[in-house]
Every structure is written in C-alpha cells, then in structure tokens.
C-alpha cells in the first residue's frame, strides 16, 4: 500500500477535526458523487455552518483520499486498515468503506478516462466506385474503395465525446493489405489468450 505520508497526515486531520457525523456523511456522499462523475447530492453551502474553511479542507482531503485509494485498486479491507491506522473512529471508517465499495467501479471508470487516447473506431462506411473514363484517364485499374471509418474521440473544445470520420480511398490491393493487417492483429490477440 503506497499511500503517501502527506495524505496520511491530512487524513489524520480529518479524524481529529470536530465536524458532526451527519455533516461528515453528507460530505462523503458529495465526495463520491463527484468522483463517480455524478452531480453532488447536497449543496455544499448548507453544510458550512460556522466553519467553511474546515469543510473546504475536509472536502478536498476526502476527494484526494478516495481518488488515491481507487487508483491503487485497494479493496474495502485494505482501505479499512489504512483508515484505522490513522485513528478514524469505527463509524466514520464504516461509512467511508461502504461508500467506497459501492462507488469503486464508477470511480475507477472515471479515473480510467483521464489520459490521452487515440481515436477509437466504432463503425465503418464504405462504397465501391468505378471510374469508367475520365478526362485525364483513359483506362482505369479497377474499382476504388471509398472507406470512411467512424471514430469516437474526445473533443477538447466542447468537453464531450464526438464522432469523427476518417476518410480514405484505396484500390483493391491496398484494401487487401489492410484487411490482412487487421486479421493479423486479431490472430495475434487470439494467440495471446490461448498461450
């Protein structure tokens, strides 16, 4: 378990600070909703009471802890061990572990979405053209394959998933080559699994 000392001291602060159990619970729910990519269930300003700075800090620390635990793929028991080591009381530990276990997969999905990925092909359109004759061409060499790969890609400007078309045309030989390459890749994957 490679949880940094810094995070541990920060968590210790939460275990010592005096916020009520109810506020703690709501704060946790908010935290995991944010981590799992959902909208927050409670309005933060209602939780503030007299100590907004404390709450702000606690919220940040809980967010960090939840993300860190999910990043290390720790199971509930391991999380529990870490929290008890930092002197969280039983009730708070249990609340944290329960919420963590129910939300772990979602959090990991969200974490998995961080990072650069090449566009992902989801569909393909095609058509076969045949140029019988053209102004600059007397004889054609055969059909031309117009292929449009539909790929899904994250759009940095609009902050959402968008479909992007990759268009190209090729002759039958090139297409054959492409198909062989793809088949080769599939075979390689299959060999990986059987060995």
């Amino acid at each position: 378990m490679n949880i940094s000392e810094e995070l541990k001291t920060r968590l210790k602060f939460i275990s010592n600070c005096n916020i009520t159990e109810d506020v703690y619970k709501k704060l946790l729910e908010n935290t995991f909703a944010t981590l799992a990519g959902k909208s927050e269930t409670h309005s933060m300003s209602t939780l503030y009471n007299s100590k907004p700075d404390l709450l702000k800090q606690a919220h940040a620390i809980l967010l960090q802890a939840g993300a860190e635990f999910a990043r290390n793929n720790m199971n509930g028991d391991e999380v529990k061990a870490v929290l008890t080591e930092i002197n969280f009381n039983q009730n708070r530990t249990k609340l944290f572990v329960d919420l963590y276990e129910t939300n772990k997969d979602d959090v990991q999905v969200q974490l998995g979405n961080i990072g650069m990925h090449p566009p992902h092909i989801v569909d393909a359109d095609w058509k076969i053209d045949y140029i019988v004759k053209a102004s600059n061409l007397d004889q054609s060499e055969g059909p031309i394959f117009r292929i449009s790969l539909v790929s899904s890609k994250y759009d940095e400007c609009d902050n959402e998933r968008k479909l992007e078309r990759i268009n190209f045309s090729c002759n039958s030989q090139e297409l054959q080559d492409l198909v062989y390459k793809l088949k080769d890749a599939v075979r390689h994957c299959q060999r990986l699994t059987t060995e």
Partner: protein
Amino acid sequence: MEEVDNIIIDSLRNLSCNIDEDVQSLKQFTTEIVYSSMVFCLQAINPDIHFVHSLPQSMSLRLKNATTIAEHIKELGYRGDMGYQTILYCNEIEIRRVLMFLVERLPREVHKSTVSTELGYVPKLVKKIDESVRLNLEKPWVPSEFLKFGSRDCKKMVLKQDFGYGHNLQSEIIQIPDLQKQDCVESLKQYWVHYLPEVTKQCLKQNVVPSLLYRDSEFTDLAFSTKVENVETNSLVNNIEISNANLVKHNGTTVPELSIFEIEINKIRCAIEENKHKYEELQISYNNLDKQLAQITDERHKKEAALKESLTKIKTRSKTLAVLQNKENLIKLKNLVDNGNKRLVELANHWNDIQSPLLQEYQELQEQLKTRKSKIRDEEQKLQNLKDKKISLKKELSEKEKLEQQLATEYEKLNKNTNRSAYTRRILEIIANIKKQSEEIQKILIDTKIVQKDINSLNGQLDRSFTLSDELIFRDAKRDAMARSAYKLLATLHKDCGEVVQAVTTVGLVERESRNLQEQIDAELCKEVTSKLERLNNDIIEMKRENALLINKLTERTC
C-alpha cells in the same frame, strides 16, 4: 485381465461415456458401446474430430463411420490389425488391445503446482492483460452509446471499450485551506472562510482529480526554487553595452563634417553631464552633512542624559553627607547594617535548610520523569512494532486464505480422480502376484532340472551295466551255447527297450502337439466365428435390401 478391464472402464466413465453400472468386463461390451467409447476417446485425444456418439441405423453409414474411426486410430500410431471389422464384429482381445492403446493416449489433466500460483507483479499484470484481451474477444459487440462512460461491466472486471470520453491529463493550481499550518495570518484565514471557492469549483470538472492527485503545476521541489545566478550572461550583457558605447563613439569621430548643431548639441550634452556630475557630488556632500548633523544631535542627547544622572547623584550624596555629620546617626546606621547582615546570614541558612530537600526532591522527580518517559518511548516502540507485525500478519493471513481457497478448489478438482490410489493398489497387487508366480516357476524349473539329472544318471548307470553284462556274457558265449542264446536275447532286449523309449518320447511330443492344437481350437471357438458369420450374413442381407430400396427409388426418379 480383470484389472486391465477395470482401468479401461473407469477411464471411459471419466470421459462421461454412458456405460451401464453392471458392465464389469470387456466381454459384456456390445458393438454399440465399443463404437461410442472409441468415439469419446478419439474426441478427448483430438478435439477437432466430430462423430455421432451412437451407431447410426443404416448399415452403409455404420460401415463408413467405422472405417473412418479405424483410420483415425491408425493415424494415432496403432500398430495392430485395425479395420471396420474390429469395431463392428468385435472380439474381446482385439477390443482390449485397441482400448488400452486409446486410454494410454488420453491427455493427462494438467495440474498446476502451487508454486506457480504465487506470482509477482509483472506476471499478474500479464495475466490481467490476457484476461481482458480474452474478454474483449469473447464478448459480443455493443454500440458505444450503451456503454457507461465507454466502459463495460463484465462482473469480474470493467472493460474499457471506448476511449471517446478520455480527456487529457491536465492539472490546475488548486488552493486548499490548510488549518494544520501553525503560522497563518488572520487575513488569510478570512480569505479562506469568505472568498475561497470549493475545490470542485476551482477548476473544470474533469480536472479536479488530476489536480488533486498530481499538482504538477506547483513547483514544490527545492530544485526549482533556488535561483540560478547567471553571472556569465550578466558579464556578457555588460560587454555588449560597452562595445555598443564604443561603436557610438566611433561613429562620432568618423563623421566630423556633421553640422555645427551636432557639435553644439554635443557640447550642451557635455555641459549637462558636467552639471549632472556636480549635482551628484553636491548631493553626496549634502547627505554626508546630514549624517553628521544626525550624529551630533545624537551625541548631544546622550550628553544631556549623562548630565541629568550626575545631577541626581550629587543630590543624594549631599543629603547623605548631611546625615552622616551626626555621630549618633552613624552608630545607628552601623547597628542597622550589622543587624541586617546577621539577618541575611540567618535567612540564607534558613533558605539552605529549606532548599536542599526540595532540590533533592525535584531532582528525584525529574529522574522519575525521565525513566517514565523512556518507558513510554519503549512502549511506543513496542506498540509500533506490534502494529507493523499485525499489518504484516494480516497481509500474510489474507494471502494464506487466498492460497487455501485455491488449494481447496484444486483439491476438489483432484477428488474426481480417486481411482489413482485404486490403480496403484491394483498395480502393487499385480506385481505381488507376478512375483509369486515367478517363484513357483523357478521351483518347477529346479524340479525339472533335478528330474533331468536323475534321468541322465540312470541312463549312464544303465549303459554301464549293459556293457558290463554284455562283456560277461560275450566271454561265456565262446564256450557255452546257452550263453550264446542268452547273448542274443540280451541284444534283442536292448534293442526292444530302446524302441520302447523312443515310442514314449514320440508319444510325449504328440501329446504336446495335440495340446497346442486344442488351445488353438479353443481360441478359434472364443472368436465365435459362426455367430459373427451369421451377423455378417444378416448385415449383408440388410445392405442388399437397402441397395434394392435405393435402386427402386432411383428407377422411380428416372421414370
């Protein structure tokens, strides 16, 4: 043969051939069972082979299937005689031989050793990659609109199938209130309380987690904070400035025929420069004078204070002198001083009396405190050690539990093959039997050897006694007619006896031969040729009928 049959039937049952419980030996095998068991064995050896598990009804199909199976078995390397007749018109011995061969070729179940289950990080990762690739290949395609943020829940693991939601890793500077910090200004606290937005609102929604986890936009490292003193560049810049100035000067001298104004301007410039210098000098002198002034005023203040002090001193001195001029007063004062001194000594003594025990006590208490502190430290150390131990034990425990589960599942798998011990027991029994038999054979061999020896010695004795009697009678025969006839009789007797012995040995040979023949006859009888021939006849008739039917159909079609 019973053991062999048991082994064959056991392994066939393991292959989930449905052999009835009451079948105990290969004698009870019907054509149906033989066929299906061979098919099961072949499929276990080579999963690419596909056959129907039961014999087809039609005679010609039966023949065809049986021939292909026979070919497959031959391909596997079976040396003996193998054809459709072995399967369809089976006899026990041949079937036993073929099935033994097939059972030997059955693939063994691969048992993973427990050592290989404790994997390191890299093999685990590779295994996980394999698993996810396998899942990706196995699972049917699903439109990415149905996926949850591009991921798919497959019970065991979450498969990432669409990376369209993957935004770049980008972190922003995030401010978090830090109440643990000791020295923070009140105004900063006020800022935290009233104006600082929450972490989630300080940056884009998708950047919250990266900013919290990495914070690479903050240079906390010391390497970044120390300023690099770039002396070299400074000097370089200075050099450049100087050379520039030179260049300007150069220009001025090389072009003397510039207008007079230029010269005028230069003159004025020089004057300005001079004035500037003068001004600066004046400024410096003014500053110096200012400083001097300040020093002088300082000195003055000091001297004034000293004057005041000395004045007060003089006052008190004059007063005391006035008092001391009276003698009584002097004596009184002396007494007072003496008394005061005595009292001081007394008090000091008293203080010592009180102080020493208290000091001792204080020291003792301090020592106690020290020992207690060291004890506490020890205890803390112990506690820490225990905690570490507990964590390691817990880890070990969970690992052991995992291992136990794995072993339990493996054990369950193993349990199916309980016949292993039975096999070994049987093998041991067989070995013991063979040992006994060989011992008996040895005994019999020794017996026969002894008998042979006896026979040989008797033969020798006989020969010797015959030659002796022959000589004796021959000597007498020259003189006596009776003896001559006796000699003749002896010769015929010897010849007859030889014939008798010859006859006995030939009888023995014939008997052995006849026994061999009898065995052969028995073996032939075992093959049940007549019944098989009958079956063969029936099958031929059946086939003929089928052929006739087919011909009929054909003719009908053509008509």
